[in-house]
């Protein structure tokens, strides 16, 4: 099942996140002791298995999902390691996120339908070359009828952002005003012309940026003769 493309379009002009990885998300399986149908107690644990195509192990960057009444999330991954090549048998499952809290107060609604992202830097272990992901959902409160995660998407690693230390001038945001020193005579005409050019460029930019502020007209060309209100 191919997950839908992310809807990040706010028109802001920042770089789009890479497309989500192809994977198969199975429906959640409740872990319960005893018969699922007749037992009155609710299972508080469910497991969602996500299988990735075996030939394309994923370098995981981000997991995005919409919560639906899950309180705590644990994520385990199965990785393909160079030492595994040639060796058959079960690969090890490693926990990369343990008991991440989605609902701070599980009996109440806070966080119950929110969108969440889990990033590689929050994970306990390295998540490169991942072949399978298992999400273990816990909901200790018995008041909710169902709990799961929706719109689950895995994002592969994109470009790495370069970490730079910020220069010292930013640490002092209120610089002292230095009065212009005109004792040296008339300022250099070249300097003045470059400054004027910069000013002109800025004015052009301002003119190009039309304001989005409303004018306040509520009618259409002076006419406000309307039908009944519409229900859609």
């Amino acid at each position, binding site marked *: 099942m191919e997950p839908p493309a992310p809807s990040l379009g706010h028109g802001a002009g920042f770089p789009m996140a890479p497309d989500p990885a192809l994977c198969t998300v199975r429906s959640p399986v409740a872990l319960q002791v005893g018969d699922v149908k007749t037992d009155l107690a609710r299972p508080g644990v469910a497991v969602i298995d996500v299988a990735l195509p075996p030939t394309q192990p994923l370098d995981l960057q981000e997991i995005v999902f919409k919560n639906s009444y899950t309180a705590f999330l644990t994520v385990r991954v199965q990785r393909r390691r160079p030492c595994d090549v040639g060796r058959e048998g079960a690969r090890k499952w490693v926990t990369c996120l343990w008991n991440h809290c989605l609902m701070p107060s599980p009996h109440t609604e806070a966080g119950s339908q929110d*969108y969440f992202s889990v990033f590689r830097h929050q994970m306990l272990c390295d998540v490169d070359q991942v072949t399978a992901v298992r999400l273990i959902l816990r909901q200790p409160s018995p008041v*909710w009828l169902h709990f799961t995660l929706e719109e689950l998407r895995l994002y592969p690693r994109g470009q790495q952002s370069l970490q730079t230390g910020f220069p010292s001038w930013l640490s002092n945001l209120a610089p002292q005003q230095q009065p212009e020193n005109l004792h040296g005579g008339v300022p250099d005409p070249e300097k003045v012309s470059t400054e004027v050019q910069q000013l002109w460029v800025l004015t052009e930019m301002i003119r190009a940026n039309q304001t989005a*502020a409303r004018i306040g007209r509520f009618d259409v060309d002076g006419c*406000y003769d309307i*039908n009944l209100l519409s229900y859609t």
Partner: protein
Amino acid sequence: MLEQDTGLSLAIAQIVQRLKGSSLHSQLERQARGSLHKPEIKLDSLKEDIKEFLKTSGLFPSPCHPAAPPEHMKEPLVYMRKAQGSWEKRILKSLNSMCTELSIPLARKRPIGEQKELLNKWNEMGTDEPDLSLFRPVYAPKDFLEVLMNLRNPNYENGDQPSFRNHLGLIQVPLKVKDIPELRDYFSELGLNTGQLGIDDSTQVPPELFENEHVRVGQTVLTEQDSAAAQQYVRQGCPTALRAELWALILNISNQPEDILYYEQLKSNVIQHDLLVDSLIYKDVKLTASNDDYYFVFEDYLYQVLLCFSRDTSVLEHFSYSSATPPKSYIRGKLGLEEYAVFYPPNALSQLNSFIISVAPLCFLYHEPSKLYQIFREMYVRFFFRLHSISSHPSGIVSLCLLFETLLQTHLPQLFYHLREIGAQPLRISFKWMVRAFSGYLATDQLLLLWDRILGYNSLEILAVLAAAVFAFRAVNLMEVTSLAAAEAVLADLSTLKVMPLLQIFLFATVT
């Protein structure tokens, strides 16, 4: 970091969009232009440097998740959005049926003669006595309470058998509300050891102990024009002389010439077009404010403010964070064509009644119509709109009701049980107080002290705490009543109550 980067870029883009064309934008650009000539600044790395700095300084809180659709930002819970949608449909149906029954158009352009007449009468619209007997209010507070009572989360176990899952009060949704230890922490400036206006300025207390110093600090805050400091300051109450300016400072109202011009434009809109909702406003003002002992003098002001308010399209912006959706209509003959779609009324708030009376207290503070108008509009889009729409926000009316019921149940369990047994659920009585922010029930000076705290804490939770405190104060009498009508009689008159001592005792001096 990808998350912080995209979140930060989104926040920056949204703020730049908001600022475009405003005077703050040009001030910032002027400053930036000046700073560009400093030798330490490297233009090529400028953008990244600023981003890094903003990230590490913690000045930018993360906005809504980028994958979340816009309706999620208005209200994250799906069933609440649905409930708000059906409530709005009911109101639209009611307006439409009123329009067809009375054969009055929703909007009508006034003929020139009528426009001139209205312009002449602008300052004394209260003298008009139009026939309003056929108009009925769109809804009453108890209708709204019925809707809130019937809110159910489909994923919550609402069994018929009484169990710990069922709430004993009227509200049955499991929202997170603060308990008394958290409220004590949140409202720490109202504690017993901190001076308060409303308590420590009474005649028995010598002014040197608190009042003089407090007034002096207030004057300093005003000269500095520090909005954040003003918000902190009003938590202990505002001196009457400084209140108007301090509130304007907190709400960022400066009454520039362009604001006065904007108000005049709204006034001309009122004169040009006559709306059906105008008659509803007239009726409501006549029913509520004109009969009130304190507010009847402001009747004319109320018309001026409210009629202009219903034409103000800038109010439409608050719908991006309110759970409500503005009602639409189309120009006659152009049904379905989006270029001819307009909002009705222009500010898209057809449920104006039951809070009209919350304009009236502001008339004591502001005498200039355009400033009064702006203060009221800002207070509405910041706070009071939450009292009229269904949402899970901590200051929304649903959370306030639940907070009130939880506080009463936890700290006055006998009273709560007794009232429930006699069929007088406490929320039925206190709902009308909270939905009007106590306007029209408390004495005006006490009401303004309460609203000081709303502004100071930027939250309406204090309304629920006060409602519970009032019940606690009259608990002895309430334990003796045997019917809903008798309970209402005990709580009918709140005009003698002193707000701050009640709040202090309930929060800080009750044994938990």
